[in-house]
């Protein structure tokens, strides 16, 4: 083989610099992320904002709509006048979150997605909700399981309920075109039903959408940074507002380690444009502390005015409670995703049910 050896000596291999290796990987990652979008998979939901995350079914559902009911204005004012240290609860939440157990073969979450919108031709506001239970396997090859249950629609407040009764207490509402609100089977027919539906379970072998963070696919969630600085590098967008959105999504939807979740709280506390609101009750009526910001994203349901996004947190347990989109003008709740439960476990109750 001496001629081969001579060839190898004549043609030495140049060194591969880490920069070149990294730049190449990023090019490839962009192509990979781009393919996710092109295929129109659920990751596309997030990719537009550079963030692909868990709970896609949940994500798809997450919103709410204009309500005419003045629920929130007093709280709204807090966001302007909050004390400078009003965001300290995020650091408390970080400390609490860091000690939450995070080992297990499944990450389960139960979310309630809600939207609020007006009944057709009426002054009263409906609140429509569904429950989305998601089980994401720690092993990237496994299937992700979902159970979605339509929880129904009903008047949003006692005042709305009175108006609804005056209207004859209808059990369905018919719109001229597609109905507003959650994506349901009836929606395209312009129908909104008051009655809850049956749970529907499905599993999907989709690509691992927890990984497309800021266009940087990660093969393991352990690859995520566990410091605020590291997360900022990963999630950072040219626009601080988008960085806030990314951090919030990570916090609420991603099956990340407790350390990473803690880092996300700390990052949120440090980002500009995140204002303390103070104590609030979330969309499900649970007490918590909140921050608000102007999201770079648009609400799912078209809303003409500006909106603010509110994150409600339980600092003592370190758990996120809800993401709520409210109108800037009157603080009314438009859409929300409330987290009922998230945990790491070795049991997936849905596996094998279908």
């Amino acid at each position, binding site marked *: 083989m001496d001629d081969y050896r001579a060839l190898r000596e004549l043609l030495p291999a140049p060194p*591969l610099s880490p920069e*070149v290796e990294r730049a190449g990987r990023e090019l490839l990652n962009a192509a990979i992320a781009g393919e996710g979008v092109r295929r129109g998979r659920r990751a596309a939901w997030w990719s537009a904002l550079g963030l692909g995350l868990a709970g896609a079914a949940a994500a798809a559902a997450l919103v709410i709509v204009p309500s005419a009911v003045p629920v929130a204005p007093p709280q709204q004012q807090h966001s302007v006048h909050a004390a400078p240290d009003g965001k300290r609860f995020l650091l408390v939440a970080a400390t609490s979150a860091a000690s939450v157990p995070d080992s297990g073969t499944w990450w389960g979450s139960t979310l309630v997605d809600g939207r609020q919108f007006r009944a057709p031709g009426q002054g009263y506001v409906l609140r429509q909700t569904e429950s989305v239970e998601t089980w994401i396997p720690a092993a990237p090859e496994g299937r992700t399981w979902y159970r979605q249950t339509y929880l129904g629609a009903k008047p949003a407040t006692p005042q709305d309920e009175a108006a609804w009764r005056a209207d004859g207490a209808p059990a369905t509402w018919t719109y001229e075109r597609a109905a507003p609100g959650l994506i349901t089977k009836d929606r395209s027919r312009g129908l909104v039903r008051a009655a809850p539906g049956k749970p529907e379970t499905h599993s999907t072998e989709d690509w691992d959408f927890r990984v497309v963070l800021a266009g940087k696919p990660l093969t393991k969630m352990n690859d995520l940074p566990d410091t605020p600085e590291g997360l900022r590098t990963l999630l950072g967008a040219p626009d601080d507002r988008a960085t806030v959105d990314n951090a919030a999504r990570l916090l609420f939807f991603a099956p990340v380690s407790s350390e990473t979740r803690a880092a996300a709280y700390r990052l949120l506390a440090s980002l500009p444009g995140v204002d303390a609101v103070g104590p609030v009750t979330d969309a499900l009526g649970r007490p918590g502390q909140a921050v608000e910001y102007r999201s770079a994203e648009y609400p799912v349901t078209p809303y003409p005015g500006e909106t603010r996004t509110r994150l409600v947190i339980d600092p003592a347990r370190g758990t996120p409670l809800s993401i709520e989109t409210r109108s800037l003008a009157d603080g009314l709740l438009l859409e929300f995703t409330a987290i009922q439960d998230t945990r790491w476990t070795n049991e997936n109750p849905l596996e094998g049910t279908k």
Partner: protein
Amino acid sequence: MTVNVASAGTSDPAGALSDAALLELSCRRPERFGEIYDRYIGEIHAYLGRRLDRQAADDLAAEVFLTAFRKRETFDARRGEVRAWLYGIATNLIALHRRAETRRLAALQRSAKAQQGPEHGHEDHVVTRVDAASAAQGRLAAELRALPDGDRDVLLLSALGELSHEEVAKALDIPYGTVGSRLSRVRKKLRAALGGVNPLNGGTDG
């Protein structure tokens, strides 16, 4: 080539997937293709760098993987290894840069000649060896440069990529028999150019 082994670490059992299994998986989970890159970027960059130059390798290495990523669904494990397939893609890419390759070989030829000049002769003892080596390298570079492109591809996939005859055949989509006949013809020429004695080795070429 060490990269090849590194990704099969114990912390990630999935990392121990064979290349072919990983590639198949990547059809459903595109992000897993990144591991193919991690395994082979070192080798592929080296191969491109040996045949072209460092700048070209820096520019083209990622392109090999982008091409492979786009074509991954057409990869057929029955037709060979992922590694050989990547070398084939890299070789096709080099074919688009033939002029760069030729220039490089011409430069190597010249620099080998230049090294034989008297200005290098201040340490006779060492220089004799260097001269002999340079002379042989110059002849080798000239020989390589004179080879038909197809022959050079076969030779360098075998010599630099260490692909088997069968893998070379599949990578270049040519008959198996052609690989053997080209290689034996070309290697005869190289040995002649090296003078039967490999001065780099100081021994006879068996």
